[in-house]
């Protein structure tokens, strides 16, 4: 493109009437070349690059670790679905026929996953077994325990379980229903709080990452001030000058993200043994969950986007500010 001389074929591409497809390929080849060039630039200033990447990796490690923590706590809390079991105590003196018909109705209910009937006698036997009052219980003239229906809702969330409890409590032969869900609600609240905290910390740290990358790129622009002036004097556009810096930002993101991933993996590996001994004491088959593929790529994408944004903010302000002062 030549503004002053309309007949002057100045662009390398337009001078040769290169086909659109080839120009498209060249466009990408050029980008790859510049990306590699920027990588080489990082390599040539290893100490500064390693510091920036290190800060980036550590900054990303904390939110990533917290995310894994929330994920694992959630896994634990999800395994307590039994907690949402509803116990329906049947009125004393109800005959077996009525109980059986209620049992059948509940089994057909769409909101209910499973119903178990524990008869008076079963309850008494179990109580005798477990409590150790076996001998004493034989002195009872009649069985004081009620029939119980254990109902497992399909939807085990606290809210819907409570709704189901209210509905079932209205059944004629039901004395009252009981749902021990408070502690589950509390756990949910704590997990929710944890997740909010993670979000806040993540936002703060990601902000810090933006500033760090922006500052690194700014220093690198300042150290190349002369070069930038020369490029501007021979006709480079701002877009051309800023491209290598943007690629540097992307590379910072890539390496920072990888570093964060490696740190988290190392931490998991380190903790695996300790957690294993704790969970074996609790007779639990809990397994620490690591990153999934999607989470890994999300982390990398986030890191790259941060790198790009940080360098873009810096580049946009500082490159246009550098103007050649004279021939």
């Amino acid at each position, binding site marked *: *493109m*030549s*503004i*002053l*001389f309309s007949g*002057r074929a*100045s*662009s*390398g*591409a337009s001078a*040769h009437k290169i086909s659109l497809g080839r120009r498209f390929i*060249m466009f990408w080849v*050029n980008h790859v070349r510049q990306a590699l060039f920027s990588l080489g630039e990082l390599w040539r200033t290893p100490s500064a690059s390693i510091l920036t990447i290190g800060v980036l990796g550590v900054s990303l490690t904390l939110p990533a670790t917290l995310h894994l923590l929330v994920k694992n706590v959630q896994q634990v809390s999800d395994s307590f679905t039994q907690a949402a079991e509803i116990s329906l105590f049947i009125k004393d003196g109800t005959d077996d026929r009525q109980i059986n018909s209620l049992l059948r109705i509940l089994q057909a209910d769409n909101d209910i996953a499973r119903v178990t009937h524990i008869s008076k006698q079963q309850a008494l036997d179990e109580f005798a077994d477990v409590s150790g009052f076996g001998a004493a219980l034989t002195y009872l003239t009649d069985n004081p325990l009620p029939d119980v229906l254990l109902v497992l809702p399909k939807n085990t969330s606290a809210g819907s379980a409570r709704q189901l409890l209210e509905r079932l409590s209205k059944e004629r032969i039901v004395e009252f229903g009981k749902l021990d869900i408070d502690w589950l609600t509390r756990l949910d609240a704590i997990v929710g709080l944890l997740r909010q905290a993670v979000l806040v910390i993540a936002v703060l740290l990601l902000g810090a990452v933006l500033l760090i990358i922006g500052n690194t790129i700014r220093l690198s622009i300042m150290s190349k001030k*002369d*070069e930038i*002036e*020369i*490029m*501007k*004097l*021979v*006709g*480079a*556009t701002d877009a*051309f000058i800023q491209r290598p810096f943007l690629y540097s930002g992307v590379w910072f993101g890539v390496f920072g993200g990888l570093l964060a991933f490696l740190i988290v993996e190392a931490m998991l590996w380190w903790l695996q043994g300790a957690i294993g001994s704790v969970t074996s004491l609790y007779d639990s088959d809990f397994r620490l969950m690591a990153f999934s593929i999607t989470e890994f790529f999300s982390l990398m994408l986030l890191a790259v986007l941060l790198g790009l944004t940080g360098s873009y903010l810096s580049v946009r302000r500082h490159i246009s500010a550098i*103007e*050649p*002062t*004279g*021939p």
Partner: protein
Amino acid sequence: MLEFDQVSKSYPGGFVALDRVSFKLEKGEMAFLTGHSGAGKSTLLKLISLIERPSVGRVLINDVDLSRIRRPHIPYVRRDVGIIFQNHRLLMNHTVFDNVALPLVIEGFSGKDMVKRVHAALDKVGLLDKVRCLPQTLSGGEQQRVGIARAVVNKPPLLLADEPTGNLDPDLSKDIMRVFEAFNQVGVSVLVATHDLGLVARMKYRTLTLKQGKMINDGLLQYQEDPL
């Protein structure tokens, strides 16, 4: 090719660097621009390369008024004007090849075509054997010639030089001037700012002389007469 129409330039603080300067450089013409330091030579070149804008008057290149060029288009204008700087302005940690190729890379050249042009430009200034050297390892004259090769590599129709022989001995200066003459002979318009009056007088080209921002001479300069 290049036209100044009643151009004045004053800097903040009231210093008048150029005062109603008018001249015209035809296509394929070569001219010298002389004057003491502070006479306005640099300002005049800055107006052409759009580093500065005139306070009054118009600067035209190929009948295009430069005041119409908006900031995003300035780089495209600079690609049409080859500029040679007094202090060379080379990329010191890049090879001679990279330095000369820079304007081509900026314009999107690549591959064989680029190599061919860079070699042709270096050949014209006689530095083909230094293509892989770093500028630090070259002498002042050689660095200046690298600067010239970079200015002409994309074949601009207009060539500006600011004190190209500033720090060179007379023989080297003469060589550099020969290079400019060679470009001029293939149709490039050349404007050389210099205070080397002896050289200017020997070369017998049109000479524009500035004094305190005013154009006081336009024509052949007679050596020894001291027109200043």
